[in-house]
């Protein structure tokens, strides 16, 4: 594709710099969805046209096509740029997922252009499974429709956290701010039942380009970013799970007797040489001796790189096995509860056997029970549907029984190990996509329940007040801001300032401080590694109770071990857990030594003191890193408030608008 104008200049003047810059760009995959006439194809065509990303010969062909097929009376019809196949050109609608590629100075983008047709839900689920962000298009004249709800539900089910509500055709409603705000409000209400962490609404007119790439002159009342600017800046670095190592073995490379390599794509987490790993199915352990990416040897590699690893010991491993760290294992079970999106024209049959492909493992599976169907328009459960099976494009919850135990994670925690497809054993059609909610048996054998099994006789009581109602009372979506860092790094100071600032704006939050918990709830615990773990487990459970009750929590614990923070994240829920690393280095903390603890630790008076006689493992992928020794407190606060804003934490405007 041709270059955006600013990039052109750099490519002309200094190709080496251009290449170096381009190499560093990251990748955002997004999809566009909306009903048939909401203008998806027009929007993408407009995006390319305004970024000057359409070649001259393509543009000539488009202008020619606009005369023949266009819906714009012969003038340039941006939609024709994306509508590829003949049949749909004749019908004037998109019927399949089309992928488009472009890059700006900030990012490289892959667009999945998804259909609005009811019967093509499967294509949208397909597109969504590859994306970080979704643009939901609505026609300003029609507002939120059944299709809007259906699409939002599907992208939420597929774990997309970043959503842009693009209210299109604003030109046809006289650029009315009121209409835009009403649609925005209606959608926010609806979306509060979904799992989005970051929702942004933008009024646009794709046909004319308003607020797509160029700021609109017609809507001065809108002060937010243009669509392109938002796409270039949205923060997706925390979307990838780098905490829980899962390595599904894809292929064994054995060219000679000396070399036995396990090839595969790291599904999540980070793999390092020297790591102890466990084969989940056999519980056999070994250590990682070598990691290869192609023919290059590396010391570590992260998801989603494709690697080949060699282990210290010859243990029996084959395709379909999953390797993980022994202290952080996935579930391993035969029975799961899952949401199914049905693709096949022949409906699901309870009791029937399908092939399931999960990771690199293919195994027969029985559809044991269909619990309910979901009415995707109202999001209501249909407990006893008139038709006993899921029909094409229907979604429901099912209990499935694999014929052999399978290593998996809940999808919310780890999509690559929480997703599967069902294949019809007779026709070989892809019958359904599956999203694992949880293990169906009481003992999921997960790392967590192995450490602290709960009594099987206890069930959770649910509240009569919906979570979104509770958080609407506090004004904040209930996240847990988990501060981690050395003693004296400034965690408590910033946490307290943050709590006060939120209160000044009129938002309720709760502060959990390490020292305070140790005076009461945890006063039976010391500082040995297992006691630290238990301390944090209790803290996480408390944070979770607060979050469940709609209250945002700020925690301030040293929490030195990666594994403990992973467990806290699991307890609180990965979507609610925001990790903030206070990165003040040891020598500065020690210099300050506010509580005189470092001096005592150096003198040997305090055992297991983090940084001195006990390690601190910094987070690999925190949502935010705060060098508190370099930033004034005001800057730290500003960055935290920005993080909250980018996650859609503010549910109503503050009496005093946060000045960020």
């Amino acid at each position, binding site marked *: 594709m041709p270059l955006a104008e600013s990039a052109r200049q750099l490519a002309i003047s200094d190709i080496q710099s251009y290449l170096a810059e381009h190499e560093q760009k990251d*990748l955002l995959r997004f999809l566009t969805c909306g009903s048939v006439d909401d203008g998806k194809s027009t929007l993408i065509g407009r995006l390319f046209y305004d970024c000057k990303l359409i070649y001259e010969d393509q543009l000539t062909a488009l202008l020619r096509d606009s005369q023949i097929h266009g819906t714009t009376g012969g003038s340039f019809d941006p939609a024709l740029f994306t509508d590829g*196949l003949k049949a749909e050109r004749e019908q004037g609608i998109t019927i*399949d997922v089309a992928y488009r590629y472009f890059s700006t100075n900030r990012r490289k983008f892959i667009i999945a252009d998804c259909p609005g047709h009811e019967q093509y839900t499967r294509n949208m689920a397909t597109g969504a499974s590859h994306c970080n962000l979704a643009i939901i298009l609505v026609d300003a004249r029609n507002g939120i429709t059944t299709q809007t709800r259906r699409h939002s539900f599907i992208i939420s089910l597929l774990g997309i956290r970043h959503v842009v509500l693009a209210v299109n055709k604003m030109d046809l409603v006289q650029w009315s701010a009121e209409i835009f705000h009403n649609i925005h409000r209606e959608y926010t209400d609806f979306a509060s039942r979904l799992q989005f962490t970051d929702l942004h609404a933008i009024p646009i007119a794709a046909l004319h380009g308003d607020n797509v790439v160029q700021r609109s002159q017609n809507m001065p009342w809108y002060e937010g970013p243009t669509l392109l600017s938002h796409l270039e800046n949205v923060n997706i670095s925390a979307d990838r799970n780098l905490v829980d190592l899962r390595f599904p073995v*894809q292929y064994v490379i054995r060219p000679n007797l000396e070399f036995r390599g396990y090839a595969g794509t790291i599904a999540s987490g980070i793999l390092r040489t020297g790591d102890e790993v466990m084969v989940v199915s056999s519980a056999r352990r070994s250590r990682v001796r070598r990691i290869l990416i192609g023919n290059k040897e590396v010391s570590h590699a992260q998801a989603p790189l494709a690697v080949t690893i060699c282990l210290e010991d010859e243990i029996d491993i084959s395709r379909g096995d999953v390797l993980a760290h022994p202290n952080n294992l996935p579930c391993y079970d035969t029975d799961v509860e899952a949401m199914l999106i049905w693709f096949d024209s022949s409906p699901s049959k309870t009791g029937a056997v399908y092939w399931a492909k999960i990771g690199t493992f293919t195994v027969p599976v029985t559809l044991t029970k269909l619990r309910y169907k979901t009415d995707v328009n109202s999001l209501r459960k249909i407990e006893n549907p008139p038709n006993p099976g899921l029909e094409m494009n229907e979604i429901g919850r099912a209990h499935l029984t694999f014929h052999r135990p399978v290593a998996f994670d809940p999808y919310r925690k780890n*999509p690559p190990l929480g997703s599967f497809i069902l294949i019809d054993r007779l026709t070989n059609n892809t019958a359904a*996509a599956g999203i694992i909610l949880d293990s169906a048996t009481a003992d999921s054998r997960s790392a967590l329940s192995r450490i602290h099994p709960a009594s099987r006789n206890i069930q959770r009581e649910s509240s009569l007040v919906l979570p979104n109602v509770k958080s609407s009372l506090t004004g904040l979506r209930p996240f847990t801001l988990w501060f981690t860092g050395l003693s004296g790094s400034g965690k408590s100071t910033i946490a307290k300032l943050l709590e006060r600032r939120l209160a000044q704006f009129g938002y309720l939050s709760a502060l959990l401080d390490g020292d305070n918990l140790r005076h009461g709830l945890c006063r039976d615990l010391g500082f040995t590694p297992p006691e630290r773990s238990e301390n944090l487990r209790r803290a996480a459970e408390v944070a979770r109770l607060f979050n469940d009750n709609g209250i945002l929590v700020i925690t301030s614990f040293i929490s030195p071990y990666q594994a403990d923070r992973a467990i806290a994240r699991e307890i609180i829920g990965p979507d609610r857990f925001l990790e903030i690393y206070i990165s003040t280095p040891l020598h500065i903390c020690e210099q300050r030594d506010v509580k005189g603890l470092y001096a005592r630790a150096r003198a040997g008076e305090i055992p297991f003191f983090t940084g001195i006689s006990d390690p601190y493992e910094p987070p690999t992928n925190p949502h935010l890193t705060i060098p508190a020794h370099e930033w004034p407190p005001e800057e730290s606060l500003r960055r935290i408030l920005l993080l909250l804003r980018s996650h859609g934490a503010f549910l109503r405007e503050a009496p005093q608008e946060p000045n960020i």
Partner: protein
Amino acid sequence: MLIPNLEYHLSHLQLLEAESIHIFREVVAEFRNPVLLYSIGKDSTVLLHIAQKAFYPGKIPFPLLHIDSRWEFREMYEFRDRLRDQLSLDLRVWINPQAIELNINPFDHGSEKHTQITRTEALKQALDHFQFDAAFGGGRRDEEKSRAKERIFSLRNRFHQWDPKNQRPELWNLYNTRINPGESMRVFPLSNWTELDIWLYILRENIPIVPLYFAAERPVVERNGTLIMVNDDRLPLLPNEKPQLRKVRFRTLGCYPLTGAIESNAETIEQIIQEMLLTRTSERQGRVIDHDAQASMEDKKRDGYF
């Protein structure tokens, strides 16, 4: 040698390479008899390079297949044979016997029929002959409109036909590789790469490519605005036509009488990238066959062309 990789930032090239390696391994693990369709062009040369990485230190566990139209550039045959010897590749060459018998060529039979017989039909014959059940191709979705909708794993029936309305949904990186006897799969590991990605990767990995991609003085004639290289004495010259030396290079390679050259001074990969970045026309413009009819690529694909 240990290469420290302290950053957790991954560039898009790293992500694309990882995805392609994953696809190669998935096919080899799940199919009986795969093959890599090697067209000698830059995309399939990149494909070959990634395949080597996917199975290192083992050898590529499948053969390569070149569908030879007999009208490739001379330089392509030289490059192919050199690469085969250097890498000890299991390279199989297939020419449609009918094409030899009837002396099919682009001049007497027209570009459409020529391509149909020497490429599309020949490919089907070869796949049937060797009983391949999966064939890797270097197609990219950014090349052309109908390819934008192609799956990575594209199911073909026993007649090698592609049905755009009956393609399997592809979610996450879970590919349904199950096929019935006679059916086959075309697999496109480079689906998500753009032309720029390919060039950046060739640069980064230092991958040798056919010299025709670099600008040099070459004898050409101009026909309907397209520069055709006089690659051997089989090109019939029109009465007033005289080959002239011009500094040209090729953006795509195929049958030489059907492949237009562009005037260029780009002699290095960096210069090619720079020229490509600044160009205002798309890659396939140099290919004569795509102009035959609107959506012509789609028609060819339904028929079994790559």
